C-alpha cells in the first residue's frame, strides 16, 4: 500500500516545530520545478511544496485535492474540473481556472522539455477557463488515464506568477500550495523548506487541519548509501531514502529506526529484452534467457525479504496488474532445448553458444545511477546463471549520459547497441503499459530516446492499449489491460523482477507517510520525537 | 700546572666493528698543543669525538670505557648527556674533520658560530660582538660580512676558519681540531696554523689531529702516534719527528714527499703545445672570471711538467683544455705538432687516445655499475690497443683480483691506480693528472708518486701534473708552471724555481710549505 507503516518510533514524545533533516541518495535536481524535465528526484522534493489537482489513495482510487470534483463527457473528449474555492498559492496568486491553463500550457511548452508530465497531458488540446473555479479540458482523443496523469507530482500546480518569472528563477524556487515553501537552495548542499503557515489544501494524506507540525525541512543530498545509513544512525538526519537492503533488515530488527516501504506505481522493475534484432527477435531465445536466469534465490538473498519477486509488468500497487508465475520458472534443460531449436546449437571453447560463427552475446548496459548495488549484484547472478546455458552476458556499468547513449536509437537504421536493459519508469496507473509496450513507444524522440525498450511491436497489444486508454469503464479497462499484460508476459519480452523499490528509513520522527501517487513521502503530518 | 685533558685507558668499541680505540692515554696542559698522528683508520677521529662525548656520531652507538677521563678539569667518566652538554662548546670546542659540511648551509655563519652562546642564553647583542671577535680571531677578513653569509657562499678555507671560530667563540679551555688543514691551499693552511699557534700561545690547549706531518711539526709540542687504535709512540714533537722509534711513525715520516728528480737528459719532441689560451666564465648575476688568461706551455716527450697555484687559479681549467674537454675562447692547443683544440669533435675522436686525463675525483669518473675489469676492457676497446686488463693492473701494481670489483669497493689509493691504469690502456703520448694524490693518505700518496716516476721512466710518456702541493711537484716533475689568477707567473726547471723563485707567489708558496725535518 501507499501508506507508511506507522509503527510507533522508539520512545520520545512528539513535539511541535523543529527542523527535520532529510537525506536523499537520488541525484540533486538541476531544477526544482518538476515540469522541467521531470524525474523522480524532482517529484520527491516537490511533494513538499507543490500539489497536484487530484490525489490517489492507497487503493488506487482517485481522490479530490486542489480539484474537488470532475466530470467527463459521454465521448470522453471534454473534462470539467471544479477547483476548491478561495485557494491561493504561497505568493498570494489565486489558484483559479486561468492558473490551471497556464500550468498545462507550461507543461506542453517545448522549452520545459517535460517528459513524464508532457506525456500525461499531451492529449489535452485546449484548456478553457469557464469561470474562476471551473476549468474545461478539450481532448484530441479520449484519455482514461487523464486523472492518473494529473495526480502525479510532475503535473502539480504552480503559481502562474512564479512561472512568469522565467525558467531560471522558477527552477530555483517554484511556488505552489504545499505545506512547505522553498526558502533557500544551496546547490550540492541542501534545500531549505520553511513551513507554509497558511496551508489550506489538505490532500488525502493530511490528518489534521492547519499548517504542518514541522517548522522547517533541510533537504540534503548524500549520494553514498553507507554514509546515509551512518548519518541516520548517528542522529544527524531523520529520514533517508534508497537504503541498502541490509540496512532495512537491521532497521526492522531494531527499535530505533522505522522502515517505510512504498513501492512505486506503474511499471515493475524488469529486464527488458530487445526483440527488434537477433538474438532476441526469436521468442524462443527470450524464453530460454528467462528460463535460465533463475533470479528467485538471488532476490531472496540480496534483498532478504525487502523486495518480493514479481511476475507482472505492473507494480503490485496497481489494482489492474496481472501476474502469471507459471511463465517464469527455471528450467535449464528446456532453455537448452529452446536454444538448440533456435539454431544456437554449437558451443565454443569458452562454453558460449554460437550460431553461424556468431556468439550468443547479450549486451547489458547498466546505469550506475539508477541500479543500486544489490540490483547490480543480481544482474551479475543473471550473468552467471544464463551463462550455464550458453549466453554471454556483457554487463557494462555506465554513467547516466553514456547509458542513455547506449540505449538511443541508432542514427541511420543500424543496430541497437543493447540486447538487454533494466530501465525504471514511474507513472501512475496501468496506462504506463502504453508508454512501455505500444509500438508508438519505439519511435525515438529527437534525442534518440524511446520508452519501449523491449521494442514490442505487436498490433494486438497496440489495439488493446489504445482501446483501454479510450474507455472509462473500469471493468472493461481491467479486462483489456489484463489481456495486454498476458501477451507481454507470454511473449517473454520482459523478465519481471520486483516492484520499483522505494524505501525510507526514519529515526526520531513520526507521522511520515507517502502519497498514493508516485509514493513520494509527505511531511505534512510529521513530528519530531524528543 | 694542572692538565686540561687527562685520559687513561680510553677504550671505544662499536657493535659489529669491535674495538676501535684500545687503552689510549693522553695528557695535555693549557697553552700546549698535542698532535695525534696515524694512518687513515687509526682511530684519530673517534678519539677526537670521544673527548666531547660524541664517539658514536653518524653510526652505531659506541661503548666507551676509560680508567680516567678528565676534560677541562671535570671528571666526565660516566657523565650523562646533561653534564656533557654543559661541557661542550663551553669548555671544549670541536672542529670536525668534514669542514665543508660542518656548517649548516641553511643558516648564516653568524648563527652557526654563535650557537654555543645561544645555547647558553647569551643575549643577542653580546653574542653578535663575540661572534665577530671570534671570526676575526680565526683570521677571517670582514667578519661582519662573513657573519651574514651562508657557508656555501664561502670558500673552503673560509669555512674552515669559520668552523674554528665557532669552536673558540666561548673561549674553551680545550680545542680539539680534527684535520683542520686538509683540502686547503698551502698558503691558506699556513694561515690557519698560525692562527692556531696564536690561540695556543694565549693559553688554549689544542689537540690537533692531522696526517700532515708538516703541520704537526709547525704547531705541536708533543706528538702521539696511533696505530690500530693503540698509542704506539708518544713524546715531544722534535724527538718523535726526528728520531721516530716505532715503524708506523717512521713509515709516516718516510712517506712525506722529499727530494727532486734529476733533469731529463735529452728533451724529446714536443707532444703538447698550448699557445695564448684564454677562457672566461660568466658568473651568475653578471660579470665574469678569467679562468685562463694568455696561458702558453709546452710539454715534451719524457718530460714531467707540474702546474701549481692557489685554489681557483685555473689549473683544472688548463688541464681540461689540454685534453680538449673544453674549448678555449682564444688561443690553441696542438697535439704532436698537429691542430687539436680547433678540430671538430668528429675529427678529434680518432686521435683522442694520444692524450689522457686522470681526473681529480677518480670515483666519480667510473660508472658505478661497472667492475674494474669492464672499465679497463672498455678503455682498451676505445683506444684500439692490444693490452689486456691484467697487464694494465700489473703496470699499476694492483692484484688481479681487483678485476671483478666495483669502484666503490676499492680504497682511495686503489681507485687512483685504476684510473691511471685506464689512462695507460691507450699508451698515450701525454698523461694529464689533476690533483692525483690530494685526497690520499701520505703513505698511499707516496706509493702513487713512486709509481708515476717509475712509469715515466719505463714508458717515456709525458706527464702534466696539477697539484697544490709543492713537495709533490718537486718529487715528480722536471719543470714547473706557477699560476695565479689564470696567468702563468713563473715557469722553469724545478731546481731553478726552488733555488731562486722569481715571482712573489712562488716565494710565498715555498715559504708556506713547511718542510718536515729530515729523519
Amino acid at each position: 500500500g501507499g501508506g507508511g507503516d506507522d509503527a510507533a518510533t522508539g520512545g520520545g514524545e512528539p513535539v511541535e516545530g523543529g527542523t527535520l533533516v532529510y537525506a536523499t541518495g537520488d541525484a540533486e535536481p538541476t531544477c526544482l520545478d518538476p515540469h522541467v524535465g521531470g524525474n523522480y528526484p524532482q517529484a520527491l522534493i516537490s511533494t513538499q511544496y507543490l500539489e497536484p489537482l487530484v490525489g490517489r489513495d492507497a487503493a488506487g482510487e482517485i481522490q479530490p485535492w486542489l480539484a474537488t470534483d470532475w466530470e467527463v463527457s459521454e465521448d470522453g473528449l471534454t473534462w470539467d474540473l471544479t477547483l476548491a474555492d478561495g485557494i491561493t498559492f504561497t505568493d498570494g496568486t489565486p489558484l483559479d481556472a486561468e492558473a490551471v491553463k497556464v500550468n498545462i500550457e507550461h507543461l506542453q511548452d517545448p522549452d520545459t522539455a517535460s517528459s513524464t508530465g508532457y506525456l500525461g497531458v499531451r492529449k489535452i488540446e485546449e484548456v478553457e477557463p469557464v469561470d474562476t473555479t471551473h476549468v474545461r479540458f478539450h481532448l484530441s482523443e479520449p484519455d482514461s488515464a487523464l486523472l492518473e496523469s494529473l495526480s502525479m507530482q510532475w503535473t502539480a500546480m504552480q503559481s502562474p506568477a512564479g512561472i512568469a518569472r522565467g525558467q531560471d528563477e522558477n527552477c530555483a524556487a517554484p511556488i505552489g500550495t504545499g505545506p512547505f515553501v522553498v526558502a533557500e537552495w544551496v546547490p550540492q548542499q541542501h534545500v531549505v523548506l520553511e513551513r507554509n503557515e497558511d496551508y489550506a489544501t489538505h490532500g488525502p494524506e493530511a490528518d489534521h487541519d492547519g499548517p504542518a507540525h514541522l517548522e522547517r525541512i533541510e533537504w540534503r543530498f548524500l549520494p553514498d548509501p553507507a554514509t546515509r545509513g551512518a548519518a541516520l544512525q548517528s542522529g544527524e538526519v531523520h529520514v533517508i531514502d534508497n537504503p541498502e537492503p541490509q540496512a532495512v533488515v537491521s532497521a526492522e530488527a531494531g527499535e530505533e529506526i522505522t522502515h517505510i516501504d512504498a513501492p512505486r506505481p506503474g511499471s515493475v522493475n524488469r529486464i527488458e529484452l530487445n526483440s527488434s534484432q537477433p538474438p532476441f527477435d526469436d521468442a524462443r531465445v527470450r524464453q530460454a534467457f528467462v528460463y535460465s536466469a533463475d533470479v528467485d534465490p538471488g532476490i531472496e538473498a540480496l534483498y532478504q525479504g525487502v523486495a518480493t519477486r514479481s511476475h507482472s509488468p505492473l507494480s503490485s500497487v496497481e489494482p489492474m496488474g496481472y501476474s502469471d508465475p507459471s511463465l517464469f520458472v527455471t528450467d535449464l534443460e528446456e532453455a537448452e532445448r529452446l536454444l538448440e531449436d533456435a539454431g544456437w546449437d554449437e558451443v565454443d571453447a569458452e562454453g558460449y553458444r554460437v550460431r553461424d560463427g556468431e556468439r550468443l552475446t547479450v549486451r547489458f548496459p547498466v546505469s550506475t545511477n539508477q541500479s543500486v548495488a544489490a540490483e547490480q549484484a543480481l544482474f551479475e547472478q543473471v550473468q552467471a546463471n544464463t551463462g550455464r546455458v550458453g549466453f554471454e552476458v556483457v554487463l557494462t556499468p555506465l554513467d547516466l549520459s553514456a547509458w542513455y547513449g547506449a540505449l538511443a536509437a541508432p542514427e541511420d537504421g543500424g543496430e541497437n547497441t543493447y540486447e538487454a536493459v533494466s530501465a525504471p519508469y514511474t507513472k501512475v496507473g496501468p496506462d504506463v503499459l502504453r508508454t512501455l509496450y505500444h509500438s508508438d513507444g519505439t519511435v525515438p524522440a529527437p534525442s534518440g530516446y524511446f520508452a519501449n525498450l523491449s521494442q514490442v511491436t505487436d498490433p494486438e497489444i497496440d489495439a488493446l492499449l489504445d482501446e483501454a486508454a479510450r474507455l472509462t469503464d473500469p471493468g472493461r479497462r481491467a479486462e483489456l489491460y489484463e489481456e495486454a499484460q498476458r501477451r507481454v508476459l507470454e511473449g517473454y519480452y520482459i523478465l519481471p523482477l520486483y516492484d520499483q523499490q522505494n524505501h525510507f528509513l526514519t529515526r526520531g520522527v513520526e507521522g511520515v507517510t507517502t502519497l498514493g501517487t508516485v509514493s513520494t513521502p509527505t511531511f505534512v503530518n510529521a513530528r519530531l520525537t524528543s | 700546572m694542572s692538565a686540561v685533558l687527562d685520559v687513561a685507558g680510553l677504550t671505544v668499541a662499536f657493535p659489529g666493528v669491535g674495538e676501535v680505540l684500545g687503552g689510549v692515554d693522553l695528557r695535555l696542559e693549557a697553552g700546549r698543543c698535542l698532535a695525534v698522528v696515524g694512518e687513515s683508520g687509526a682511530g684519530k677521529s673517534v678519539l677526537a669525538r670521544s673527548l666531547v662525548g660524541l664517539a658514536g656520531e653518524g653510526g652505531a652507538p659506541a661503548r666507551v670505557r676509560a680508567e680516567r677521563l678528565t676534560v677541562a678539569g671535570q671528571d666526565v667518566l660516566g657523565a650523562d648527556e646533561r653534564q656533557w652538554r654543559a661541557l661542550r662548546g663551553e669548555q671544549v670546542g670541536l672542529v670536525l674533520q668534514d669542514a665543508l659540511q660542518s656548517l649548516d648551509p641553511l643558516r648564516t655563519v653568524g648563527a652557526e658560530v654563535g650557537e654555543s652562546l645561544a645555547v647558553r642564553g647569551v643575549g643577542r647583542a653580546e653574542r653578535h660582538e663575540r661572534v665577530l671577535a671570534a671570526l676575526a680571531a680565526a683570521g677571517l677578513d670582514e667578519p661582519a660580512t662573513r657573519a651574514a653569509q651562508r657557508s656555501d657562499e664561502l670558500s673552503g678555507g673560509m669555512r674552515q676558519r669559520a668552523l674554528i671560530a665557532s669552536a673558540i667563540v666561548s673561549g674553551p679551555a680545550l680545542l680539539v681540531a680534527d684535520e683542520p688543514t686538509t683540502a686547503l691551499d698551502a698558503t691558506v693552511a699556513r694561515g690557519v696554523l698560525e692562527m692556531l699557534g696564536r690561540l695556543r700561545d694565549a693559553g688554549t690547549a689544542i689537540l690537533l689531529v692531522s696526517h700532515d706531518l708538516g703541520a704537526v711539526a709547525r704547531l705541536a709540542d708533543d706528538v702521539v702516534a696511533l696505530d690500530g687504535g693503540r698509542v704506539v709512540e708518544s713524546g715531544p714533537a722534535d724527538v718523535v719527528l726526528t728520531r721516530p722509534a716505532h715503524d708506523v711513525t717512521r713509515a709516516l715520516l718516510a712517506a712525506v714527499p722529499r727530494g727532486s728528480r734529476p733533469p731529463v737528459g735529452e728533451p724529446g719532441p714536443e707532444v703538447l703545445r698550448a699557445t695564448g689560451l684564454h677562457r672566461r666564465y660568466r658568473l651568475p648575476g653578471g660579470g665574469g672570471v678569467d679562468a685562463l688568461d694568455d696561458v702558453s706551455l709546452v710539454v715534451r716527450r719524457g718530460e714531467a711538467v707540474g702546474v701549481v697555484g692557489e685554489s681557483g687559479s685555473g689549473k683544472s681549467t688548463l688541464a681540461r683544455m689540454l685534453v680538449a674537454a673544453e674549448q678555449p675562447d682564444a688561443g690553441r692547443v696542438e697535439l704532436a705538432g698537429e691542430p687539436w683544440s680547433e678540430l671538430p669533435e668528429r675529427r678529434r675522436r680518432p686521435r683522442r687516445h694520444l692524450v689522457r686525463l686522470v681526473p681529480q675525483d677518480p670515483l666519480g669518473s667510473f660508472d658505478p655499475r661497472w667492475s674494474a675489469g669492464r672499465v679497463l676492457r672498455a678503455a682498451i676497446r676505445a683506444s684500439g690497443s692490444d693490452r689486456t686488463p691484467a697487464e694494465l693492473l700489473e703496470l699499476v701494481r694492483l692484484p688481479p683480483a681487483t678485476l671483478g670489483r666495483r669502484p666503490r669497493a676499492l680504497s682511495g689509493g686503489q681507485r687512483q691506480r685504476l684510473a691511471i691504469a685506464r689512462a695507460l690502456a691507450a699508451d698515450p703520448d701525454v698523461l694529464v693528472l689533476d690533483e692525483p694524490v690530494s685526497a690520499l693518505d701520505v703513505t698511499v700518496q707516496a706509493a702513487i708518486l713512486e709509481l708515476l716516476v717509475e712509469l715515466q721512466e719505463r714508458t717515456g710518456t709525458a706527464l702534466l701534473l696539477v697539484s697544490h702541493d709543492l713537495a709533490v711537484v718537486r718529487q715528480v716533475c722536471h719543470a714547473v708552471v706557477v699560476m695565479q689568477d689564470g696567468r702563468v707567473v713563473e715557469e722553469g726547471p724545478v731546481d731553478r724555481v726552488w733555488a731562486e723563485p722569481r715571482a712573489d707567489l712562488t716565494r710565498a708558496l715555498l715559504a708556506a710549505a713547511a718542510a718536515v725535518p729530515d729523519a
Partner: protein
Amino acid sequence: MTATTTRAERTWTRRAWQVLGPGGVVSAAVVALVLLAALWPQLLAPGDPTAVAPAEAYQPPGAGALLGTDASGRDVYTRVVHGAGQSLGVGALATAIGLSLGVVLGFGAALGPRWLDALLSRVIEVLFALPSLVLALLLVAVLGAGVGPSVISVGLATAPGYARILRARAQAVAQSAYVGAARLEGVWAPTTFVRHVLPNTVWPLVAVATLGVGQAIVWVSALSYLGLGALPPSPEWGAMLNAGRLHITTSWWLTVAPGLAITVTAAALTMLGRRLSAVAPS
C-alpha cells in the same frame, strides 16, 4: 651434495637478508605470493571465482568458506586469489604506460636540445597539473568504464612523476664525470648513451616503478568506487572492496579481505621499492 646445496642456499638467503633487510625479505615474499596468485590462481584456489550460489550468500569466514562469501554466495577467498591477476596486471600496466611516457618525456627533455627541454618540461608541468582522478573521469567519459581507461588514466597521471625523476637523473648522468671520461676516451655519444646513461638512469627507476605499481593498484581501486573501474563480474580487488564497503557493519569480511589484499600488496611493493632504491647504485 645436499650439504653444498644448503650452503649455497644459506648464503643466497643471507645475501637477500643483507641486501633487503627483514622488511624487504617479507615484502619480497608477499610479492612472490601475489605473483603466484596472479599467474596460477588455480594453484591456490581451485574454485570458480564467478560461480554464484545465492543460497549461501553472506556466509561469515569459517570452515565452509575460508574468507566467507559475498552477496551472491561467491567464495571471497577464491575471488581474492583470482583477482590478483587483474589487480596486479592493472598496476603493472598502468606503471608501464606511465614509465614509457615518462621515459620519452624525461629523456627528450634531459638530452634533447634546449627548446625541446623547455617544451617537454612544460608538457610535464601540464600533466602534473591535471590530477589523476580528473584525467580518469575524462577518459572514462570518452572510453566508457572499465579497466582499460582506468589503467590509461592512472598511467598518464603517473607519467609526469617518472618523467621528472628521469629528466633529473639523466641530466645528472649525462653531466657525470664518467660520461665525460668516456667522451675523452673518444667513445661515440650514442654508445655512451647505451652503455652509461640508459642503465644508470633506468635501474634506479625500477625501484621507483615497484613503488608505483602499488600506488596504481590503489588508484584504480578508487576509480572502482566511482563506478568507473573493472567490469562485473571480474574479481578486481577495488571493485570487490567497493561492493563490500556497503556491508561494512554487517558483513565485515567483504571489505576486509580485498582491503587487506590491496593494502598488503601495495605496502609490500612500496617497501620493496624503497629497499631496492636504497641499494640501487646511484
